């Protein structure tokens, strides 16, 4: 046991600590607040405190615990809300009220809750680390697979069935007289990636229901994406939409150094929201980590690693997991603060020089893998990390380091947000390397997706070039086909890329709907070009009823879309055909749009 020698903010230096290891967890002071050894110097240990250090004195005791920062893994994680150290925040409310007190302990997994364990192996079976020995219905949405901890192997000498708590023994594995009891819970050091058998390429679309992501800048299962944006650009709403609608088996939301009210909003809305397919509350497939900006800085790093460790644990069961981290910049700032207190030589903008490798060590834990152990299964962890660049300047170090690691960039744009174009993802600066990885997936829903996508991008690119000319000569002096291109580009922007997270019909867009919407817009473009060639004036193209129909297209429900879009196509063919054709029945039945558009 050592004693405190120096305290400076979250940095504590203790004496008499010979024998402790780097990253060992220690308990500081009379209250036993949690700290982590980050450096050793003779018999002095440099400790970062995960809790407030106010009121500590030099000379108070520091107790090494012999273990590194670990996460508890087992049934009971889903639906829980944790702080950065995986303390259950709900348990903290009943222990210490509505305010966070330091030094209070709370288990991650409830110790008294019983789980219904069904074995899938028999006595005498040979097992080793990673093998599934039984299942527990953790929530109605997710079946928890109980796996043999890594490093254990032998024959099952005892296996039980029935209701057990996480600490009860459910099986015994014997190996040459070495007897190992297995329960529903295991621990894993959070800074160490969990092993897998083989790594695969990211593949298959991670459906998010957001058109600009799914259609334009797709994420693949096992991929990693960065979502940088200045304040007010909708990072948090984008991240929330991702965990809300992603068609994954479960999601983990890490609120790292962000707003308390927003976290409360997430927690409340997930209580009420239903999973679309089963109608069950969405929180049955979510884990939340809430380490808000006013909670201790050092725990921000822990929150990220605890989150990704839980993600890997479910991946090892063969599930697809999406982890969103909002915001990784706050973690980087915590590194900078500690680096400064340690008087380390700073790198760019005061961030420590190891920040890049630390960020990589987190993002690299994303991936699609063949899991260890039987039965054979493939699982994936997809990571989407928000970045908050100061002054919305993407050249800053956190954004730049992140961009070197990730495969997709969804760049949020302040000027789009100021125009209330949401999601404010800039279509000219974003990119995704996963286009080829999801091509086959898309072709099932929307044959030729890659070509249409490229055409849409071309139109948007051309628009940005024309915009510059418009600023000089005005929109009226452009040739008609350029005016048409601007109109179509505007349709793509406003009627396709813009999507309201708060509109019931539009908040989730199925890939089928997205594909048909884009095809309809491009169909309009084709038809309109033909009519311009046939000397129809541009003003009648612009005022044609089809334009208004396309504008309201996104309000059509996903399941009705395929039917209703036919009527819109007919409207396009009709209204852009000869004016005389109007009354031959091509006008669709729904009188949603006003016909009285006076030219």
């Amino acid at each position, binding site marked *: 046991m050592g004693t405190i020698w120096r305290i400076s903010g979250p940095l504590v230096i203790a004496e008499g600590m010979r024998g402790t290891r780097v990253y060992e967890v220690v308990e500081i002071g009379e209250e036993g607040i949690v700290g982590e050894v980050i450096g050793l110097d003779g018999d002095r240990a440099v400790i970062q405190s995960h809790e407030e250090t106010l009121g500590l004195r030099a000379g108070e005791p520091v107790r090494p615990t012999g273990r590194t920062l670990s996460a508890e893994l087992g049934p009971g994680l889903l639906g829980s809300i944790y702080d950065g150290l995986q303390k259950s925040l709900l348990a903290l409310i009943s222990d210490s009220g*509505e305010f966070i007190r330091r030094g209070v302990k709370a288990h991650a997994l409830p110790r008294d809750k019983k789980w219904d364990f069904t074995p899938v192996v028999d006595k005498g079976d040979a097992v080793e680390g990673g093998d599934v020995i039984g299942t527990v219905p953790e929530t109605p949405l997710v079946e928890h697979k109980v796996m043999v901890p890594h490093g254990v192997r032998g024959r099952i000498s005892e296996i039980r069935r029935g209701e057990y708590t996480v600490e009860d023994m459910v099986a015994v594995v014997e190996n040459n007289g070495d007897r190992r009891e297995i329960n529903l819970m295991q621990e894993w050091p959070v800074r160490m990636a969990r092993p897998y058998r083989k790594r695969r390429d990211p593949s298959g679309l991670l459906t998010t229901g957001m058109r600009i992501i799914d259609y334009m800048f797709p994420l693949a299962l096992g991929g990693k994406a960065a979502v940088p944006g200045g304040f007010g650009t909708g990072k948090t709403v984008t991240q929330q939409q991702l965990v809300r609608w992603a068609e994954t088996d479960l999601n983990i939301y890490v609120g790292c150094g962000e707003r308390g*009210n*927003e976290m409360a909003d997430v927690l409340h809305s997930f209580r009420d929201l239903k999973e679309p397919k089963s109608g069950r509350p969405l929180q049955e497939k979510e884990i939340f980590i809430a380490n808000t900006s006013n909670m201790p800085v050092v725990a921000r790093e822990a929150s990220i690693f605890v989150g990704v460790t839980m993600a890997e644990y479910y991946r090892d069961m063969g599930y697809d997991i999406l982890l969103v981290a909002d915001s990784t910049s706050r973690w980087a700032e915590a590194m900078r603060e500690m680096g400064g207190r340690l008087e380390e030589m*700073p790198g760019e903008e005061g961030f420590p020089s190891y920040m890049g490798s630390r960020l990589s060590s987190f993002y690299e834990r994303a991936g699609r893998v063949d899991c260890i152990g039987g039965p054979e299964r493939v699982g994936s962890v997809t990571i989407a990390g928000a970045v908050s660049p100061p002054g919305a300047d993407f050249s800053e170090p956190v954004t730049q380091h992140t961009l070197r690691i990730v495969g997709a960039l969804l760049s949020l744009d302040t000027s789009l947000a100021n125009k209330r174009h949401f999601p404010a993802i800039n279509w000219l600066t974003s990119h995704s390397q996963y286009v080829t990885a999801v091509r086959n997936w898309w072709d099932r829903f929307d044959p030729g997706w890659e070509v249409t996508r490229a055409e849409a991008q071309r139109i948007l690119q051309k628009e940005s070039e024309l915009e510059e000319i418009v600023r000089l000569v005005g929109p009226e002096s452009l040739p008609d086909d350029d005016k048409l291109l601007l109109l179509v580009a505007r349709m793509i922007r406003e009627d396709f890329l813009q999507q309201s997270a708060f509109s019931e019909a539009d908040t989730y867009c199925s890939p089928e709907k997205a594909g048909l919407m884009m095809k309809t817009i491009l169909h309009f473009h084709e038809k309109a070009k033909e009519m311009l060639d046939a000397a129809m004036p541009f003003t009648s193209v612009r005022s044609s009823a089809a334009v208004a129909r396309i504008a309201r297209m996104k309000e059509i429900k996903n399941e009705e879309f395929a039917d209703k879009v036919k009527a819109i196509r007919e409207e396009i063919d009709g209204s852009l055909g000869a004016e005389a054709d109007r009354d031959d029945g091509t006008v669709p039945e729904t009188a949603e749009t006003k016909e009285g558009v006076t030219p």
Partner: protein
Amino acid sequence: MKMPRTLFRGGAAEYRPGTTGRKPALHEDLFVREGRAIKKAGGALLIAKAIPGTQYNEIVEVRLSNGTVKAGQAIDISDEVTVVQVFGGVSEVDLAGTRIRCKGETLKLPVSDDLLGRVLNGMGKPIDGGPAVIPVDYLDINGEAINPASREPPAEFIETGISAIDGLNVLVRGQKLPVFSGAGLPHNRIAAQIIRQATVKGKGENFAIVFGAVGISYDDAAFFINNLRGTGALERAVAFVNTASDPAIERISTPRLALTAAEYFAWQRDMHVLVILTDMTNYCESLRELSAMREEIPSRRGYPGYMYTDLATIYERAGRIEGRKGSVTIMPILTMPDDDITHPIPDLTGYITEGQIVLSRSLERGGVYPPIDVFLSLSRMMKEGIGPGKTREDHNNVFMQLYAAYAEGAYLREISTIIGADALGDRDRLYLENADRMERLFIAQRDDEKRSVESTLDIAWELFSRLPEEDLKLISEAFIAKYLPENNRTGGDSA
């Protein structure tokens, strides 16, 4: 004695604040530790030989050899040295005669309902000539973080009577919504108007106003106090005033004192508290000054790397708690240096707060009061606070349409400066005109004009009536039929 000793005397009930001459009880002296070996003094820091038993962030007394007593805080302690940050600076400190006395207390604010109606200085001492506040409790000014799982999402609409806020950037109870201003812009007038007018519809609940003046000029502080006094609002208010001439180092405490008082009223007395903090730019300057004194590695523009976290510990004290009646709503005001919204102060603030109200110099020059820049302003809590039962059913639709039409007008205004308004088509000219009308009729109002949210929305419909009806794509047809003046002449809903 200059410093209010009450601040530092947690639990010493027999001690009457304000009676400066009284000596502490004898048993207290037994626990007082004293250090006299001061090695270094500079700026606002004293570095002394370690004083055993000092707590991290403990409040200490610095006794100068001329008898003056200053307050200080232990900001770095070790077995070798104790670093003390001195409130009021280290002027007249000498290394030989100065002593540091430690009493084992962190900074606390004495609280009670008697705080209402009072004006205190930036360290919590009365400056209104009234009697000392008799405390019922002493609260640590750093507060405690609200457990995110026990927060209630803010959703109650606060009617400020200002159209640009109520219509487009709704403020709700428990929100933190700053005003980003610039030197010379009327942020104080707007804040005073909000203080006078803010109400929650149909509720007669207890409310209180906490005003924290951080390094502002005496005139500005007097403007607020007189405003509060003149409208009778002072009875429901407490003001903490640190003026520009007070020690910069005390500004670190002023917002925390204000919020500690706010939390007392909200969580212990069930009140809805609106906290106005002005000017947070001065707070950040003090933070930078202190950081430089500590020789810390600076981040952007010399501000410390932990400024985000530091500001968060202030602003995150806003909120609602499940099962408790009160709320803390924070409206900080800050002046953007050189009107630059990417400057670290507004930038970091914007990352913490739930939106921002941005004032525009060009609107101000155009004679528009309040000059609220609708494009840069944003309230993240808006969707929770509007709609049927809260404001009106059409609010969200109207908001989106009003915004889109104004944005289009602003874009056209921009290109018409190059190509001339004559080069625009008829439809475009309509939108250009709409942008002007929007600024004149919707955004602009008098500073004694309290508009109900209904009349704010009706002005918007009046603007829509001049636009082509088929362009109102963002409004549901039912609302158009119900509220659009032309369609509704007989109903006279808003004619």
